[in-house]
C-alpha cells in the first residue's frame, strides 16, 4: 500500500473528530445569549468598535515573517544535503558552507541594524 | 595633397572654433569672412588644378577606409558638376556673411550664427565631393542639424515651426533613403568599400528591387529639391528664416536634391530611372506651373521667391529626366545659374526688409525714384530670374527646353508656359515695388551702400559672364553630363 494512504485515513478521522466535537457542543450547551455575552472582551472597559490598530497586525511582525522566510529557505536547502552529505563529499560541503555564509550576511545585517531588537 | 578633405575640414574647424571659443566672439564677423574667403581661395586653387579636358572623370580622388564593417569609406572626388557646385558654395558663403554684416545681434549670437554657417558650408562641400553613398547619406542627414539651428534660432516669428517642419520633411526623406542605402549594400559587391559609387555603378538589379531602391533615393531628393507634393516646407522656411540662411538653403542646399538625382538616381539605377521618368516629368511640369502660379499670388516676397524656386526646380528636374545630353547639361548649368540668380534675389529682398522691416509687396511702392540703384539692381536680378537673354539662366533654360523637347514634347511646351508666367510675376512685383506713387514712409529709403553693392554685383557679373560665354561653365559640365547620358542610354541599349 502507498505509505501516504494511512495519512489520508488519519486526516479523515482527525477532521471528523474536530468537526464532531464542535457540532456536539452546539447541541449540548445551553443557549441564553445576551448582548454583553456577544461583545468582545475588554478587561471590563467598554468595548471599542474594532480591535486596536484597526485589527491590523503591527509592522514589526512582518519583519519577523520576512526573516523567517530567509531562514526557512536555508533549512530547505540544508535538509537534502544533510541526508546525503556523505555522497556529496567535499564539494557539497564547501557549497553548503558558502551558502550558509551568504545567508549569514543578511542575518548579520539585520542584527546590526536592530531587526531583532524589540523595544 | 588631400585638397578636398582640407576644403571640408577648413570651414568645419573654423566654424566649430567660432562656436566654442568665446574669445573669438567679438571678432566673429571678421573671422568668419576671413575663413570663408580663404575657403574661396582654396576653391579657386582647386579649379585651377582641375583638368578641364577630363571634366567627366572624377578628379582629386581620395579613398580611405572609414567604417569597413559596414563598407563605408571616406571617399571624395569631383567631376565638373561637383566642382561647379563647390565653386558656387564657396562663392555664396562670403557673400551671405557680408550681406548679413549689419544684422543687429549680440556678439555670442552672431558667433553662433556665423559658426553654423561655416559648419553648413563644410557639409555642402562634403556632399558635393562625396563619392561614397554612405558618406553622402551621413552628410546629407547630419547637415540637417546646423541648418535646423540656423532656421530655428535666427529669424522671424514662425521660425520654430518652420525649423521643425523642415527637419521632419527632410528626416522622413532621409530615413526612407536609409532603407534604400542599406538595401543597396546587399545588392552591391560588399566588402570594405561597399558603398563607393564606382563599385555600385553598372549593377544589374531585379527590376522591382531596382525600382524600389530608386524610389527610396528619389523621395529624399524630391523633398530636398522641392517637387510639388512635398515642397511645402520651403515657403515656410523662406519666410521665417534669416535671409542669409534662406539664400544658402535655396541657392546651394536644394541643389543637393538635384545633384543627388543626377549622380545617384540616374547613375546607379538607370533602368529604374527610365521606368520612372514619365511620372517624374509630369511631377516636374506640375511643379513648374504650380510654383509659378503660387508665386503670382504671394504678397510675402520671401514666399514669392521660394515659389519661383519651386518652379525653377521643376525645370531642372525636367531637364534631368529627359535623359538628353543637352537637357542634362542645361539642367546642371541651370543649377549653377539658379544659385546665382535666386541668391541675388533673396539678398535683394533682404535689403528691402532691412530698410523697412517688412517684405510685404503691398507695403512698398514708387521706390524707383528714391533709390534708383537699388531699383536697377533689383530689376536686373529679377530679369535674370525670368531668364532674360544674355543672362546665364536664359542659356540654361533654353538648353533644358531644347534638350527635353524631343524626349517629352507636351511636357516641354507646358513647361515653357512657366517662363511666361515667370515674366508675369517678376514684372508685376517690380511694378508694385518700384513704380507708381511713393508712399510717405518710403521717401527716406536709403539706396544700396557700398557693402551691399559689393555683395550683389559680383553675382550679377557672374550671371552676365556666364550668360554671354556659357562655355566657361559648360566646359566643366559637358563631360559629366555625357557620362550620365551614356550610362542611362547604354542601359537602354541592352
Amino acid at each position, binding site marked *: 500500500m502507498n505509505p501516504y494512504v494511512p495519512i489520508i485515513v488519519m486526516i479523515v478521522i482527525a477532521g471528523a473528530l474536530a468537526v464532531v466535537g464542535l457540532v456536539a457542543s452546539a447541541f449540548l450547551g445551553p443557549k441564553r445569549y445576551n448582548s454583553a455575552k456577544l461583545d*468582545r472582551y475588554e478587561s471590563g472597559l467598554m468595548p*471599542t468598535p474594532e480591535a486596536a490598530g484597526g485589527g491590523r*497586525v503591527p509592522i514589526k511582525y512582518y519583519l519577523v515573517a520576512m526573516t523567517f522566510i530567509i531562514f526557512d529557505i536555508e*533549512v530547505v536547502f540544508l535538509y537534502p544535503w544533510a*541526508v546525503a*552529505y556523505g555522497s556529496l563529499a567535499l564539494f557539497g560541503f564547501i557549497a553548503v558552507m558558502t551558502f550558509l555564509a551568504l545567508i549569514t550576511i543578511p542575518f548579520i545585517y539585520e542584527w546590526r541594524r536592530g531587526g*531583532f531588537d524589540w523595544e | 595633397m588631400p585638397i578636398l578633405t582640407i576644403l571640408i575640414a577648413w570651414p568645419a574647424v573654423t566654424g566649430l572654433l567660432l562656436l566654442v571659443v568665446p574669445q573669438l566672439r567679438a571678432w566673429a564677423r571678421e573671422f568668419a569672412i576671413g575663413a570663408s574667403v580663404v575657403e574661396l581661395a582654396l576653391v579657386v586653387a582647386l579649379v585651377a588644378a582641375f583638368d578641364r579636358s577630363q571634366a567627366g572623370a572624377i578628379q582629386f580622388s581620395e579613398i580611405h577606409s572609414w567604417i569597413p564593417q559596414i563598407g563605408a569609406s571616406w571617399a571624395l572626388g569631383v567631376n565638373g558638376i561637383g566642382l561647379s557646385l563647390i565653386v558656387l558654395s564657396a562663392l555664396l558663403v562670403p557673400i551671405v556673411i557680408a550681406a548679413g554684416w549689419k544684422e543687429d545681434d549680440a556678439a555670442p549670437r552672431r558667433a553662433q550664427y556665423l559658426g553654423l554657417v561655416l559648419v553648413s558650408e563644410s557639409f555642402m562641400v562634403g556632399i558635393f565631393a562625396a563619392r561614397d553613398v554612405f558618406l553622402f547619406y551621413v552628410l546629407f542627414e547630419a547637415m540637417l542639424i546646423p541648418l535646423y539651428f540656423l532656421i530655428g534660432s535666427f529669424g522671424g516669428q514662425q521660425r520654430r515651426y518652420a525649423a521643425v517642419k523642415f527637419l521632419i520633411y527632410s528626416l522622413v526623406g532621409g530615413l526612407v533613403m536609409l532603407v534604400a542605402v542599406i538595401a543597396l549594400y546587399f545588392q552591391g559587391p560588399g566588402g570594405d568599400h561597399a558603398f563607393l559609387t564606382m563599385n555600385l555603378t553598372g549593377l544589374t538589379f531585379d527590376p522591382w528591387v531596382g525600382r524600389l531602391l530608386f524610389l527610396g533615393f528619389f523621395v529624399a531628393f524630391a523633398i530636398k529639391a522641392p517637387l510639388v507634393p512635398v515642397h511645402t516646407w520651403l515657403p515656410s522656411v523662406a519666410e521665417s528664416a534669416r535671409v542669409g540662411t534662406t539664400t544658402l538653403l535655396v541657392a546651394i542646399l536644394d541643389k543637393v536634391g538635384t545633384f543627388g538625382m543626377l549622380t545617384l538616381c540616374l547613375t546607379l539605377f538607370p533602368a529604374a530611372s527610365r521606368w520612372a521618368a514619365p511620372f517624374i516629368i509630369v511631377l516636374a511640369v506640375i511643379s513648374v506651373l504650380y510654383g509659378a502660379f503660387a508665386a503670382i499670388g504671394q504678397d510675402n516676397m520671401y514666399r514669392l521667391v521660394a515659389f519661383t524656386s519651386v518652379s525653377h526646380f521643376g525645370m531642372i528636374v525636367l531637364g534631368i529626366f529627359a535623359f538628353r545630353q543637352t537637357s542634362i547639361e542645361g539642367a546642371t548649368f541651370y543649377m549653377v545659374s539658379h544659385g546665382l540668380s535666386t541668391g541675388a534675389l533673396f539678398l535683394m529682398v533682404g535689403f528691402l526688409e532691412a530698410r523697412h522691416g517688412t517684405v510685404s509687396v503691398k507695403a512698398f511702392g514708387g521706390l524707383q525714384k528714391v533709390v534708383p540703384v537699388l531699383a536697377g539692381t533689383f530689376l536686373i536680378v529679377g530679369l535674370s530670374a525670368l531668364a532674360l537673354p544674355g543672362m546665364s539662366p536664359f542659356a540654361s533654360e533654353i538648353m533644358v527646353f531644347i534638350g527635353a523637347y524631343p524626349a517629352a514634347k507636351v511636357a516641354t511646351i507646358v513647361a515653357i508656359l512657366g517662363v511666361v508666367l515667370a515674366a508675369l510675376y517678376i514684372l508685376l512685383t517690380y511694378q508694385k515695388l518700384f513704380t507708381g506713387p511713393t508712399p510717405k514712409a518710403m521717401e527716406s529709403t536709403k539706396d544700396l551702400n557700398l557693402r551691399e553693392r559689393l555683395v550683389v554685383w559680383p553675382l550679377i557679373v557672374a550671371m552676365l559672364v556666364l550668360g554671354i560665354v556659357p562655355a566657361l561653365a559648360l566646359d566643366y559640365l559637358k563631360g559629366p553630363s555625357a557620362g550620365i547620358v551614356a550610362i542611362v542610354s547604354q542601359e537602354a541599349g541592352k
Partner: protein
Amino acid sequence: MSLLALAKGANTHDYSLAGDSIWIVIIKAVLILVFLLTSVLFAVWFERRVIGRLQERPGPNRHGPFGLLQSVMDAMKLLFKEDITVRASEKLLYILAPMISVFAALLTFAVIPFGPATRIPFTMEVTPLQLTDFPVAMLYVLACSAIGVYGIVLGGWASGSTYPLMGAVRSTAQVISYELAMGLSLVTVFMFAGSMSLTDIVNAQHNVWWVLPLLPAFVLFVISMVGETNRLPFDLPEAEGELVAGFMTEYSSMKFAWFFLAEYMNMINVSAIASTLFLGGWRPLWAESWPGYEMLSNGIFPPLWLIAKIWFLMFVFVWIRGSLLRFRYEQFMRFGWKVLIPVGLGWIVLWSAGMVLLPHFHYSTSRFTWLAPAIALILAWLVFSSVIEYRREKRLKAAEALHEELEDQEFDAFAGGYPVPPLPGQKLPRSPRAGRTVEAATMHVPTPDTTKEAQDD
C-alpha cells in the same frame, strides 16, 4: 518527495508497512487518537498535580483516586458549556480556527514509531507499531506543526478583538522564530541518520542515543520545543497579566476546548519527536549486550519505553513551568534570534566540518562524534562568557558616564510632568523633615542601586 531518491540511495530498508491492510490502518489510526485523547486528559491532571507538588500543595485530589478524574470532569463541563460566537468576529474563520488547531495536532503521531514489527495479539498479522512511515516523515511532522500556526493566527484575528489579535501575532512570531531553531537542530540528526524517516532514525540509534553525541542539538531542540508550544517560560501569547488569555480570549465551550486540547497534544507531540530523535524512540534503556535485551525490545515493551520517555519530557515541561519566570517579549525574541539560531548554525558547521573533512583527510570520525559536543560546549562557553563580560563592562561604563553626566544636577521629582525617581548622581534636595531630629540630620541618603537595574536590561 524530492528527497525520495536521495534517501533511497542512502538507505535501503524494507518498509513492511506496505503490507498493512486498510483495516489494520484504520484500527491503528483510531488507537492513536484514543491514546492522544487519554494522554491529554492525563496530562492536564499530571501538570496540575506536579505543579501542586512543586508548590507544596496537594493539587487536584477530589475526583477519583489522586483526583485522576478531575480532567474528565473538566472536559465534560466544557462540552456542556454555552457556545458563544462573538458578534465582531469573522464567523467562518472564527469557527474554523480551533478545528484547524486540533486537526493539525492530531496528525503528527501518524509517523511516530512505537515499536518494531510486532504480531498483533490473537492473530497472525505482523505489523510495525507505527501508522505509516515514508522517507520524508520529518518534513510531514514539520508541516503539521506549521498548519497548527494557522489555527492560532486565524483564531486570534477572526475574534475581532484586541487581546486575541496581539496574542495571535505574538504567538505566530514566536512559533516561527523557534521553528527555525528547531529546524536547525534537526539537521545534524538527519546527517547522522542519512534519512528523514523516523523508523530509520530510531534504527540508527541502536548503538547510542543521540542525546549524547548531539547534545547541543538536543538542548536546542528542547528549548525550542518549549517555545514552539507556547509554554512557560515562553508563554507570552497568553500571558494572563498582559493579554488575558491571548488568542483564546474570545473562545468558549468546545471551541476553547479544542485549542486547549491542541496545546497539550502539541506538548505530547514534541515530546514524542524529541524522544524519537534523540532518546532512541522505543529503544530500551538497556545495553544490547545485557541479558533480557531481546525481551525488553519486543512485544509490549517498546511502546512502554517510548511512553516513559514522553512522560519524562512532559515532566520536564511541568518542571520548567514550576521553576522559571516568564520572559519579557523582547528578551524572548532576542534569545531566539540572537542565541538559538547562531548556536544552531554554529553546531551544524562544526559537526559537518568534522564529518566531511576528517574522512577527506583519511581520519576516522568515530572519536569526533564524541568530542564534538565537548568542543561545542567549550566554544559556546568561551563566546558567551566573553560577550557577557564585554556587555557588562559596556553597561558599567555607560552607567558611570550617566552618573558623571548627572552629577550635581538638581533632582527634579516631576521631570516631564510625571513623578520620577532620582537618577544616579543627582543631588537630592534637603528633606523638609531634615533637622527635626539628630538622626535625620546625620542620616545617609541612600543612592538607589541603578547599576543593578541597568544590568537587567
